[in-house]
């Protein structure tokens, strides 16, 4: 896929406008680096201060804001009709939902999604390094001939396609629980897509680890992740060899993927588990004897017995003689997947994603019990969480993060989005770049981590840009949306748009504020020129920031 300079400038302009990037970032011919913090902070520890009176929520609104990336026009009415529990059951069985239109679009726009590891390496090879002089010369020649600088397919295309496909799916897939879960597990098994082989292999990981097991058995997902070429490269276990073990992955699989930091392991356990996992590596592309590259089996997980530490080990009280090769690691992944601390940790994060920053203790216990009893069955565990009263009564307990905000805005405004690049840049600029967090802890999922002065300004600007129809290569048609309704007065318009975007009544004082913002009294004729202002203010209001 070719990105023209014009397109690129448009993306950056949107992103820059949203967060206020400096002018110099707009005039460069290359993408600005992912200006991410090296580390996102741990969840803000104290309780979210309750908002002003937001009015009444409803289980339907809550279900669509949590299970889905917000309602599209028509969704609310449909779920009202079939009932929230039926909707949950439907979403828990994504295979039964017809999503073929989206699948076709994905296959056409993003061919890398279905490629094997070898195909990805072969079709998108690492470009040979180019000297600055050569680059300048090529740019000069391109300018002289009035053509675009030639861009060979490379790993940046693989990354770009995966990011864009993720956004496209979030906005348009009918399997919305599958999409919010994919986001959740990508964050649980977070990795920085810019590192080494991850550039190519994250696409495989997204397909074979995250999406394949999102509603399956947790143990299967944990093992798939442990043998995922992307994870092996990201956390350096492909370099973990006997004699000089690399502890990076051994630590994170316990701290971040299974037991949790307080899950009851020691530094000694980390060192011993690293020894257990020595030799777990991945087949790399290599130089062929006769020039060129040899991609045979590249990206395949392999167990290299020669690099495996054959000494005796003890991890979490489990003894290994050292003679069992790969079985030691398989055993430990199994032990971790079914450890009581893992049941607590995994369910805590799921409840934080779908219900509240602080998990209600009773539900947390029930979810952890289900997880344990079903040997880590994620569909059964989620069923307990989503069918609970805690879920239905959790209106306004969660704040939208940038990805959720962008997707929900596009959905609420029925935006026809042709190209995902502008949104991809925007999400990155707002601090939640997809697969771009450098550290493996994942983005925080608490309101206090995402609401601060800079973030609110970005949210308001995004609302303005959306409502004014200034998102590049995307269309909104608010007049058409209103065409069937009989809208004459300012009050009519305000009520229509509150219902259409929020699907619930807001306190009268807020309704009056919107009327006042249009510079009129409730019974004045509605001036259609103020329509974007009205939509912008609803999207920018505190009401729309909750999921």
């Amino acid at each position: 896929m070719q990105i023209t300079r014009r397109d690129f400038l448009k993306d950056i302009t949107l992103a820059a406008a949203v967060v206020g990037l400096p002018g110099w970032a707009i005039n460069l011919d290359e993408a600005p680096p992912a200006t991410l913090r090296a580390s996102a902070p741990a969840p803000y520890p104290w309780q979210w201060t309750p908002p002003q009176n937001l009015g009444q929520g409803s289980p339907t609104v809550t279900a669509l804001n949590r299970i889905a990336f917000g309602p599209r026009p028509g969704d609310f009415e449909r779920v009202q009709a079939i009932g929230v529990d039926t909707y949950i059951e439907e979403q828990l069985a994504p295979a039964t939902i017809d999503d073929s239109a989206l699948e076709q679009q994905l296959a056409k726009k993003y061919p890398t999604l279905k490629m094997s590891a070898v195909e990805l390496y072969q079709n998108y090879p690492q470009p040979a390094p180019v000297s600055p002089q050569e680059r300048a010369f090529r740019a000069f020649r391109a300018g002289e001939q009035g053509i675009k600088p030639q861009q060979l397919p490379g790993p940046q295309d693989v990354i770009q396609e995966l990011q864009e496909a993720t956004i496209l799916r979030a906005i348009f897939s009918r399997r919305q629980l599958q999409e919010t879960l994919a986001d959740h597990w990508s964050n649980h098994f977070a990795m920085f897509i810019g590192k080494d082989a991850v550039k190519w292999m994250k696409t495989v990981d997204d397909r074979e680890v995250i999406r394949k097991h999102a509603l399956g058995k947790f143990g299967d997902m944990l093992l798939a992740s442990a043998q995922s070429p992307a994870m092996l490269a990201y956390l350096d276990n492909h370099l973990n060899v006997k004699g000089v073990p690399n502890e990076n992955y051994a630590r994170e699989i316990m701290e971040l993927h299974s037991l949790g930091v307080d899950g009851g392991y020691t530094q000694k356990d980390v060192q011993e588990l690293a020894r257990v996992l020595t030799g777990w590596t991945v087949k790399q592309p290599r130089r062929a004897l006769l020039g060129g590259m040899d991609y045979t089996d590249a990206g395949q997980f392999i167990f290299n017995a020669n690099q495996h530490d054959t000494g005796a080990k003890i991890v979490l009280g489990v003894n290994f003689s050292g003679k069992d090769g790969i079985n030691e690691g398989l055993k430990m992944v199994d032990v971790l997947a079914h450890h009581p601390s893992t049941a607590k940790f995994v369910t805590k994060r799921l409840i934080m994603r779908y219900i509240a920053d602080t998990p209600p203790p009773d539900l947390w216990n029930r979810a952890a019990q289900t997880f344990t009893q079903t040997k880590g069955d994620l569909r059964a565990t989620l069923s307990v969480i989503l069918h609970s009263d805690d879920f239905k009564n959790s209106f306004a307990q969660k704040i939208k993060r940038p990805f959720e905000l962008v997707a929900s805005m596009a959905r609420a405004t029925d935006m026809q989005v042709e190209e995902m690049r502008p949104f991809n840049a925007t999400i990155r600029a707002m601090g939640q770049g997809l697969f771009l967090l450098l550290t493996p802890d994942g983005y925080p999922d608490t309101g206090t981590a995402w609401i601060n002065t800079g973030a609110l300004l970005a949210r308001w600007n995004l609302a303005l840009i959306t409502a004014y129809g200034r998102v590049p290569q995307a269309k909104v048609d608010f007049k058409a949306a209103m065409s069937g309704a009989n809208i004459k007065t300012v009050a009519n318009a305000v009520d229509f748009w509150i219902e259409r975007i929020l699907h619930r009544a807001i306190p009268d004082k807020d309704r009056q504020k919107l009327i006042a913002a249009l510079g009129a009294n409730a019974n004045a004729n509605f001036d259609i020129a103020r329509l974007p202002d009205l939509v912008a203010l609803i999207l920018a209001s505190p009401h729309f920031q909750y999921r």
Partner: protein
Amino acid sequence: MLNDTSRRELLKRTGILAMGALTFPNSLRVPRIALAPKDAPTRGDILVCIFLRGAADGLNLVVPHGDKNYYAARSTLALAQPKANNDQTAIDLDGFFGLHPDLRPLKEIFDARQLAIVHAVGSPDPTHSHFDAMDYMERGTPGDKGIPTGWIGRHLQMLASENKSPFRAVGMGNLVQQSLRGPVTATALQSIADFHLQGDARKMQQIQTALASLYEGDGFIETTGQQTLQAMNDLAKITSANYAPANGAKYADSPFGKALLNIAQLIKSGIGVEVACADLGGWDTHVQQGSADGQMARLIEELAKTLAAFHADLRDEMKRITLVAMTEFGRRVQENSNRGTDHGHGSAMFVMGGGIKGGKVYGEWPGLGKDNLYGPGDLAITTDFRDVLGEIVQKRLANSDLAQVFPGYKTFKFKGLANEQTARLEPRYTIELPFNIRIPVPA
């Protein structure tokens, strides 16, 4: 009206400080009050806090070239002993320690005695997890996550300053640093120049007014919204379009360089900055760390260039600025088989400012022999990071109640690296409690 001391007493008596912020009333968060005048006195120094995220290798930042065990442990990564006119070797400081060659821009500041270094410093908690270690350090309570506020947040909370600017505490980046957490809401700022609503100016004025009414209220999101609108108004007053650093200062052309440039700009504008935090990530050099050149050297260059530019840019203001740079822990002494280093324990800290007794590497050297190492083979800690920060808080930030800033730590051993703040300014204003706050006074 209450003066500072009595307000603090009141807060203490009511247990608000002691309980952290779990129960603080919303109205204690910075209320909407006009910006402090340009010449409003600051009680102590402006604090600039830099966090090197990812565990920076103190042994290659500040090289113990007098320790032969350093060379034994690092056959490919060690920096060579200082040689004159050689930009690949360590730069000697005192015959035992030397700077990484890419820290050369800081040598002049060190020689001018405005830069002090502390070595073998860190947190006593044994964790080798980045996230835990950063968390503990930013809270200022190693091994304890019971208190939800950060050490700088608590410091600000106690001062009950007359400064009501939304820029009293600034966190550069998308998210506010954990050390700033507390009832004084910090402003997260990515860039000064574009902190405004995007659109036709007159129309945006209407939108801004409407947002101000929609964001009325006491909740977290509403108070943050009010602060955002206040900050927009205040920043509009700074002419920021063509900021030119003074004295030929050249910041690194990177997000970190820009963050420090923006901090300098805010400080000079007199908008009320008391504390600013910025981060530089990428120090987790497990693989191909490099030595005089390479991955880590490029980061060091970015760091040194930016700190030197900051110092030059604010030359006339350094007497009221203290900058501290720290990292969550150091790296393993023995290099690994990937020409990198794994997670360690002790590292180095940098303290820069006009009130700092610089030109010296502080701290006892524990040695790098087998018996001297900590845990799996790490540099031991001989100075607790709270000794350094505590001294800064007490002597430079004019806050002597260290028990509140670093609860649970009782054995402060100051290194003597800071001069006592002499020009202690009496606050010109007294704090006005927001009218709607009710503090119960126990019988």
